[in-house]
């Protein structure tokens, strides 16, 4: 969830943008990583593993572990923890390593 008031930090003053996540409209803040927008919206599962379809999400936060990968604007394996949102971005839960894996 978003931290609206903080004892130390000044509030973020950037404009809102809209992205879609699996077809649903989600509000995000310009420039924040996709992962941050999803977690703020309560979405913690970013992808599912290929065979057992286990949920995976944000882990290292610095683009090293690849657990946060999702399909972004049609491209698979995008590390959402280091990729900033843009107005109109389409985010999809990735199953396996390729878009095509969603079928199996």
């Amino acid at each position, binding site marked *: 969830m978003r931290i609206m*008031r903080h*004892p*130390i930090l000044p509030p973020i003053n950037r404009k809102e943008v809209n992205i879609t996540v699996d077809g649903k409209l989600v509000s995000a803040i310009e420039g924040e990583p996709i992962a941050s927008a999803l977690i703020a919206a309560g979405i913690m599962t970013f992808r599912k593993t290929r065979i057992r379809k286990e949920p995976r999400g944000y882990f290292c936060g610095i683009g090293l572990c690849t657990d946060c990968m999702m399909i972004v604007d049609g491209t698979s394996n995008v590390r959402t923890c280091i990729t900033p949102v843009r107005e109109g971005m389409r985010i999809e839960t990735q199953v396996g390593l390729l878009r095509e894996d969603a079928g199996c």
Partner: protein
Amino acid sequence: MSDGIATAGSPSIEELERSPGFPNRKRLIKGPVAVIECVQEIPCDVCGSSCPFDAIKVPSISSLPELDEEKCTGCGTCVPLCPGLAIFLVDYNFSKDEALISFPYEFLPIPKVGTTVDATDRLGRSVTKGRIVRVLEREQFDHTLVVSIAVPKKFTQEVRGMALPRGDGTR
């Protein structure tokens, strides 16, 4: 009873009394005084340069801070400046029955003067009720408030905070 800074995460009374920043009982009952609860040698000397009365000495960057009990006037300048939030102001003679304990505070909501709170010890346990007497907010404190609560005198050496309002993650 805590068993110490390295195991319980909070200094025991013995560790405090051994440290050069902790005023002795005689000085404590004389009037407002800084109580420095910094018992481990870490590289930090902010308190030493913060005292307007030169009452705190940090001989070398990794030394323990030393309190000069005579020079300390209990002005409280050091309290919001310590990066470790380890300095308190204690006024034993605040009133006939109460001592005033001032501590650094960096949470929301900002406490309200006059509120009754659960006064807590170094391990976060409620030991008595306290009354918020003062909440100091200054630009030079850089978002560290100094909150002062009045508690019965017998809790002077125990109370170092107050119970936080329960966080529900949506503040």
